[in-house]
């Protein structure tokens, strides 16, 4: 396996082999996090800019810790305290960062394609930390890493993604990654939030939650995104919980070894019962631990130069 990609912009353009390379590399970085000294010098002397034009806490913290554990120098750039407020364009901000010799830019932006734009404009390596409703590649990589670690494989598994899928970059990236690795993906949720067009990606779309959960090996819950208001999309949170929330009665009808995932932050009592979020079938906190390892692996792989790998 050899990695010759400059930027991580989306899962759609990765091959199955490239995804597996990230997962294998992440396994070694997870072990680093379990040592007394959790830091390695792989990115020593490199500068990473975390350009979070759209606010984020958990993804930013995860990237920041991953960068620190690789010994990189870090600049954090957030929308609230930046020149965006003063009217600077993304391109000008990026060129300024390039003038500081940034080696990596980790960008989250509300506009789909913003990372692709930077990748075309700049020499720095670009990592997409979420762009609009398009993709969130490191989230999907950590999700498939977590599934592979617990189930031993991805190929042939039934994965059900349940919830607010229409504008979900997490869902899109996960669908790509899961399909490329051979999983069967079922999407379920209110019909207004789960359009049939997703069938074109090769997924099964159903609005019957019991049917969606019956064969699932993995139940992937997505948060109802209150902030991207959905008032017109479904009648109310209470009704959503009643129709699609994961509760004990619904869980009892699933396969006994089905595992539950959620990208966080969870809304207890909305898409997931509080007890279920804390039960041993829930992988929610493992996803957080694995996210760190996967982001270290991505930074490590993108740091590689051109040409053959070293031997001897």
């Amino acid at each position: 396996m050899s990695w010759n990609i400059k930027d991580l912009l989306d899962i759609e353009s990765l091959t199955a082999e490239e995804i597996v390379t990230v997962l294998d590399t992440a396994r070694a970085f997870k072990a680093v996090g379990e040592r007394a000294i959790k830091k390695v010098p792989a990115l020593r002397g490199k500068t990473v800019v975390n350009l979070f034009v759209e606010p984020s806490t958990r993804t930013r913290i995860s990237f920041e810790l991953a960068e620190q554990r690789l010994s990189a120098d870090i600049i954090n750039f957030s929308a609230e305290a930046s020149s965006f407020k003063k009217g600077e364009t993304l391109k000008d901000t990026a060129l300024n960062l390039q003038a500081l010799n940034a080696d990596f830019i980790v960008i989250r932006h509300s506009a789909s394609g913003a990372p692709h734009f930077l990748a075309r404009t700049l020499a720095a390596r670009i990592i997409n930390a979420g762009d609009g409703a398009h993709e969130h590649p490191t989230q999907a990589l950590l999700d498939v890493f977590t599934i592979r670690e617990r189930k031993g494989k991805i190929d042939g598994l039934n994965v059900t993604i349940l919830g607010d899928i229409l504008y979900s970059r997490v869902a899109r990236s996960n669908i790509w990654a899961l399909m490329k690795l051979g999983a069967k993906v079922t999407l379920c949720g209110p019909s207004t939030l789960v359009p049939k067009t997703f069938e074109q990606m090769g997924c099964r779309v159903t609005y019957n939650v019991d049917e969606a959960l019956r064969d699932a090996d993995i139940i992937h819950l997505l948060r109802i995104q209150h902030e991207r208001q959905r008032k017109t999309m479904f009648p109310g949170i209470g009704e959503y919980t009643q129709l699609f929330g994961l509760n004990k009665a619904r869980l009892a009808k699933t396969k006994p070894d089905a595992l539950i995932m959620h990208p966080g932050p969870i809304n207890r009592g909305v898409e997931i019962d509080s007890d279920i979020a804390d039960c041993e079938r829930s992988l929610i906190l493992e996803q957080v631990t694995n996210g760190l390892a996967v982001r270290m692996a991505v930074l490590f792989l993108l740091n590689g130069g051109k040409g053959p790998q070293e031997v001897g």
Partner: protein
Amino acid sequence: MPESSVILDATAISRALARIAHEIAERNENSAEVVLVGIPAGGDALALRLGKLLTDIWKHPVPVGSLDVSMHRDDLDRRAAPNVRPTVMPFDVNGKTVVLVDDVLFSGRTTRAAMDALNDFGRPKKIQLAVLVDRGHRELPIKADFVGKNVPTAPDEKIRVRIGEKDEVTLERK
């Protein structure tokens, strides 16, 4: 088609490893302090073989670990990212004599990375280096303590070490 010649066959490899094991035993009087650490991918199998030989000599088990050094390399941004292999260090290295085991000693950069990586696990009392083949062309002031065979090479030649079903070391010319 590259020209290939056998440098060491299975018998010669066994003999070289037996000699290295005896040299390690001779050099280290306190056998309880010695642990072997293979550098993947080539050094792992050799470290296991040396571990068995030393267990026979010393009449007690000799711990064997495996240390991936790719996160400590100095050429990470010059080449495609290396394959990272699992690190297994099932012992405390503090106060131990660590014998690093690799198949081929070339530039010495892998050995330097290994010494740095080892430091993350503690402070060994001593670090020694055992290699099956020393092919010269050092780029750092590093020297092996135990060598199976010195092989003069040109920089663009390749040494290929196979340990497993059929043990063999070959030299490939372009």
